[in-house]
């Protein structure tokens, strides 16, 4: 058996794969946060709860109406994104002109309410969600077995991240978004409906969280607190990548997942703290984040 620094290649690649899967969730979640922070200047603390809702809605759709995974992968983000738009219109809009501490507190409170409601109705134990039949099994890559569903998660995350980057950086709609981030008054003086743009953007960011939630449902247990831990890591990721930076969120998400996985191989005791150590270093050396614009 091949060995590297006393560690088997299998173990190493296994952790790399695990790191990439975690990184996929970090990337999609921090991307949603970055999109929302970029245009709305809102630190969306409810992101973890909305990720959980995405998984739960998929589970409900399967359990109550028998909706298959593939359909839920589209429908659940639409439903949760719609709920997000209602939240934006009814609760976040009135806070728009205030310091973003207010929206942070509001979304933090919302998290407690949403998680509490789900705990009340569904308890804290996980609900099982089966891996779709077409994606069960594993392929032999020669050096390791890759569970097909895990590979699918990475592929979907890469596709959705690229699509979002393309939408924002390369299309007319994206140029409206970027312009409104810089100077919303000027954009509205051109005849563009900025409040609608804001609502749609929040809904889109929330839908990304729900999409990650649906992807997570078959591998993590669907439970009301599933978003609580991951959201803390995701906030560290966007601080490292640079608040509001699309590219920073995507690259930061994947690479920090990878770093976390590798730490598990070389120094397992530090695996849950590495990201926070990196965050502290980045804050010391470049407070705006690796891809953030200097203010």
């Amino acid at each position, binding site marked *: 058996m091949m060995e590297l620094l006393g560690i088997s290649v299998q173990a190493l690649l296994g952790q790399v794969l695990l790191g990439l899967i975690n990184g996929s969730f970090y990337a999609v979640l921090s991307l949603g946060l970055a999109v929302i922070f970029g245009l709305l200047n809102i630190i969306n603390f409810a992101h973890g709860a909305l990720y959980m809702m995405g998984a739960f809605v998929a589970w409900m759709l399967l359990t109550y109406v028998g909706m298959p995974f593939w359909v839920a992968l589209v429908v659940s983000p639409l439903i949760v994104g719609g709920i997000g738009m209602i939240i934006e219109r009814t609760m976040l809009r009135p806070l728009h002109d205030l310091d973003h501490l207010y929206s942070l507190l509001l979304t933090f409170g919302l998290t407690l309410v949403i998680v509490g409601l789900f705990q009340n109705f569904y308890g804290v134990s996980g609900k099982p969600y089966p891996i779709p039949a077409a994606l069960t099994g594993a392929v032999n890559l020669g050096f390791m077995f890759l569970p097909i569903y895990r590979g699918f998660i990475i592929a979907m995350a890469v596709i959705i991240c690229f699509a979002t980057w393309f939408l924002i950086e390369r299309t*007319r709609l994206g*140029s*409206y978004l*970027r*312009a409104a*981030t*810089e*100077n919303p*008054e*000027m*954009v*509205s*003086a*051109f*005849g*563009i*409906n*900025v409040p609608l743009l804001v609502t749609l953007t929040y809904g889109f960011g929330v839908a990304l969280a729900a999409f990650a939630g649906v992807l997570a449902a078959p591998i993590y247990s669907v439970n009301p607190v599933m978003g609580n831990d991951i959201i803390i890591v995701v906030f560290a990721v966007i601080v490292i990548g640079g608040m509001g930076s699309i590219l920073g969120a995507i690259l930061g998400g994947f690479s920090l997942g990878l770093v976390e996985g590798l730490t598990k191989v070389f120094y397992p005791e530090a695996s849950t703290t590495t990201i926070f150590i990196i965050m502290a270093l980045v804050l010391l050396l470049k407070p705006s984040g690796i891809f953030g614009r200097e203010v």
Partner: protein
Amino acid sequence: MTHTNEKSQTMADATEADILLDVAGLNGWYGESHVLHDVALNVHKGEVVTLLGRNGAGKTTTLKAIMGLLKPRKGSIRFNGTQLIDLPARTIARMGMGYVPDDRGIFGSLSVLENLLLPPKVADGGFELSEIYELFPNIEERLTSYGNRLSGGEQQMLSIARILRTGARLILMDEPTEGLAPVIIHQIGHTVRRLKQAGFTILLVEQNFRFAREMADRHYIVQEGRIIDEFHKDEVAANLEKIQCYLGI
């Protein structure tokens, strides 16, 4: 509407029907402070009209109020016969009013081409890109640059150019010559004349009286948030001292 303009003997030779923009009894506030007091002015189709006045007189605020960017505001603003006072800026823009702000409003994180294509078309008859490049050759050379890499003059030209694409027929232009070199001011003057020939109507805020005098058909004097006087271009020479006194030149 109260029409408390002290001096409303309009010398315009056009008829009422030609009035494109008719502002009457316009009041505006910045938070608690009352900054516009019963502003009344009108602009006829195809005219170039200036708002002259010292720093802080309320010229920019008047433009913002007309564009719907000042809240709250009260009074009457009729554009092509439609009352605008309760409409948001985005609706006003869609009716064919273009805004060239005093800070030029160029988006630094967008490329020049993205800036140029940003404002949606609001009416037919806007300039084609080829016409814009002909008018502003510098812009065509810099299409892939980011907005924040442009010089002040280039930003000003881009700010005007992107409005020409939209088909807006009334352009509110806020100090297009501010802080620019004489050769650039000359080019902007050439552009304003071209636009007038092409039938555009322009409401121009200026501090540069020499520039304003060359461009405009009529001048309003703004002071402390009020319109205090009005001169047709033919009256300027006879009232030069008075005007210079108003402007503190």
